[in-house]
């Protein structure tokens, strides 16, 4: 069951990497980065579950929590910059 999630995170990372490079607009590139992030976090949480203990290993959970907050803050700045560029274009 864990192997499936590892594989799923792998696909997410690879697909979003492809679309990151091929993205036509900044919004698409931003979405692909976020999805890549979710893929990596899935890998982390799958590792958390991959233990002999009954409840999962809390350290990756804390790390993913930090990762999500960092990803959100980076997205917030990216949004501001893209808004500036869009406004500038018109």
């Amino acid at each position, binding site marked *: 069951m864990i192997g499936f999630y590892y594989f799923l995170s792998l696909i997410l*990372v690879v697909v979003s990497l492809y679309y*990151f490079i091929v993205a036509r607009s*900044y919004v698409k*590139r*931003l979405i692909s*980065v976020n999805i*890549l*992030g979710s893929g*990596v976090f899935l*890998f*982390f949480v799958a*590792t958390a579950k*991959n233990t002999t203990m009954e409840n999962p290993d809390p*350290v*990756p959970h804390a*790390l993913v929590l*930090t*990762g999500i907050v*960092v*990803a959100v*803050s*980076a997205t917030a*700045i*990216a949004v501001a*910059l*893209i808004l*500036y*560029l869009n406004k*500038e274009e018109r």
Partner: protein
Amino acid sequence: MPIDLGYLVALPLLASLLSLIPSLRVYTAFIFSLLSFLLSLYSFIYTLMGDIPLYQWIGGWVAPLGIGFRLDGLSGFFLLMTGIIGFFVALYSFSFFKVEYQRQGKVFWFFFFFLWAGLNAFFLSEDLFNLYVVLEVLSLSALVLVALPGHRKAIKASLNYLFLSILASMFYLLGVAMLYANYGVLSMSLLSEKLAGTHAFTYALFPIIVALAIKSALLPFHFWLPPAHSSTVAPASALLSSLVVKPPAYLMLRLWLEVLPKDKSLEYLSIVLSLMGALAILVGSYYAIRQKTIKMLLAYSTVAQMGYLFLMAPLYYHGESFREALLQAFALQVFSHALAKASMFLSSGNAIYVARRDDLSYMPGFAHSHPLTFFALFFSGATLIGLPLSAGFVAKFLFLGLSIRLGFIFQGSIMLFGSLLASLYVYPIWRESFSSHPTKFYDNPIPQLMELSAFFLGFLSFSSGIVTFLLLQGIVRG
């Protein structure tokens, strides 16, 4: 008596928050930049005398559970570098933001101290995930500094920089996740024992090395650096070019020398990195020579100079017996380039302040009108080329000697050729600042503090060659 290394990180953070209050801004900026400089100086002196490597576990939780600060010769040395450059750029910015970019001046200090805290945190931390968060702090604050001027070119450059640095951070995180999945440990000191004899880490190494290459603008990923470093205000580009690009290379060296055991795939990787480094030097210098504006020239020269650190990758791999000399050469190359580049960017800031134009042909004849800025440009240019008495020369000398002793003729010849190329792109700056062509004569004075800080940085980078044995004592001890 070792101080609590936490101060080195927490104080600049507090300073950045305090600098938001308009009335307190100038005082906090001065007091805290001085304080942080003294702190890094003290930690450097501690590496000379105290027992190092000094481990301090945050929250009292030991290795696998908690995060630790580690202070050894190399990190102490880089803390000193950050302190010196941070302090002089702070001095420069005091008068720079009085005369120019007043609006940006208000917010500059917040990101300046954040960057400083991030750099201190990076050189001290020894936990892989913690380094991810610090890398993110560095990229975001550098990013906003790039976007500071607010015109379209700066915003576009910072956006490209943002995307590439998020991608690199995600790759780095993937590498850390893979290492954690296989070895269940995040701290570097524990990792080195666990890695001995296994092969799984080579998989995890690939995303980490790619991420670090992107962050330090190694060749195929260097497109974001020139527009980013050249489109922003002078003190910001000085900080970016001299400090923000260095930590990834430092981390790569630390991983290489201390954490990763010898492995076939590592050898191939070192060869690939060395090739990319060589290309970076050649292409970077080629573009630097062709540039018309001084800031683009300096940005491309950063790409070239960073190439040296990666060029020597095979030496890190094979040079087990010369570990100490390699560390010293690496540290000196980074130190001299950082100081020289910071002084050159600050002087280019002076040039733009006087001539109101960025391109090289309009660079004012500094030799005639502003001797101090001319000395800064002259001495830091000499350090970039690697002329003696400068730490750059000692670094090149060490690298050259080691590459010949270990039989890497290719690396040695590229290193020598690279310093010749460097003189090719530093020469136009000297020539322009010397020419007494009438259009080049501007007598409006540059604020005293701006000239002095640029001069001192350049002079320090040049004369640091004399005291190299003192600077390197920390690295020798541990």
